[in-house]
């Protein structure tokens, strides 16, 4: 027997176990979920970094050189490498979700989910190639 229970006839006391703060460490699927949530912070940093780059380009050569020096700082470099990992992770999980959220019909036929995925990856590659072409031409 444990504790001192309070028992009311015909109205038993329900047990309400509390969820541990560390529930997300219980299995890899939960850890992956938390990492995906965390990736939003890095996506936000990536946007801020990109805006800083645009501002530096707008403000002329001196500002751009300062931005390059800032980017070469080991701390910024480390943050950006981690950011790259999280942004790619975020994109991959997003593309994995898309075929389940999008159900596309052509006429009366349903487009197979893997084709939705292929379309997303295809779009990603094409946009990336377009940006590369624009920057390196």
């Amino acid at each position, binding site marked *: 027997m444990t504790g*001192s229970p309070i028992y009311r006839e015909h109205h038993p006391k329900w047990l309400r176990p509390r*969820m541990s703060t560390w529930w997300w460490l*219980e299995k890899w*699927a939960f850890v992956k*979920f938390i990492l995906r949530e965390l990736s939003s912070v890095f996506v936000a940093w990536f946007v801020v970094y990109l805006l800083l780059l645009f501002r530096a380009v707008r403000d002329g050569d001196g500002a751009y050189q300062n931005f390059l020096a800032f980017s070469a700082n080991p701390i910024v470099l480390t943050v950006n490498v981690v950011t790259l990992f999280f942004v790619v992770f975020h994109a991959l999980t997003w593309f994995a979700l898309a075929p389940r*959220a*999008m159900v596309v019909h052509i006429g009366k036929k*349903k487009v197979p989910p893997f084709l939705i995925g292929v379309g997303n990856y295809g779009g990603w590659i094409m946009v990336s190639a377009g940006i590369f072409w624009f920057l390196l031409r």
Partner: protein
Amino acid sequence: MADRITMQVSRYRPEIESDAQFEEFEVPCPKDWVVLDGLNYVKDQVDGTLSYRWSCRMGVCGSCGMMVNGEPKLTCATFLSDYAPGPVKVEPLRNFPVVRDLVVEIGDFMRKLVSVKPWIIRKEEKPISQGEYLQTPDELDEYKQYSMCINCMLCYSACPVYGLDPGFIGPAAIALAQRYNLDSRDEGAAERQEILSQHEGIWGCTFVGECTEVCPKHVDPAGAIQRYKLTAATDYMKSFILPRGRKADEAKPV
């Protein structure tokens, strides 16, 4: 293979205990015994006070869901021999209040299920003399997967969002709402949208995806929720463009 296996069964008897504790039972472990057989053995041969729910023994009624070694499972479809040499830990479904031993309180789920109106809604019923509402095989395929839900609540037990926020409508109720939304005979999508589009409806879901992993009927509630998010977002955008009168009609899912 061992001919017996140890089951560690969670016991909670509110008249004598203030917290749950494990009790060990040694049960036979033939190849064809499922976890539920082990519990039935304990109840019949060892301790008749052990309380748990079960009914059909064939994965249809959805009554015997429990945590088996930390995973939500239908105990009638989970073989003891898969856990040999043991022990097998059996606990009540997580995220629900425990009434006694392995019996959980399911009132919250039942109320949420009803709130999404899981039945066919017609704006106007046609007279019986006009015959049945016909449906093509393609139209049936649109919702058939979601109609497989047996209300076993394993998805609620697997969902950390429901564990952290009991106000969340939850995976099965949303999947069942989609089952009717996608039915060509139904005209109630706009009524359900009021419930589903709340913060504690679809937007509460953060797509952990475990509900789909544990579903014994391959319903894919996580997919149903993400699909409805797209519908709701599209509908929200349409509400800016389309004349007011058409908004309700546009709630039909994509």
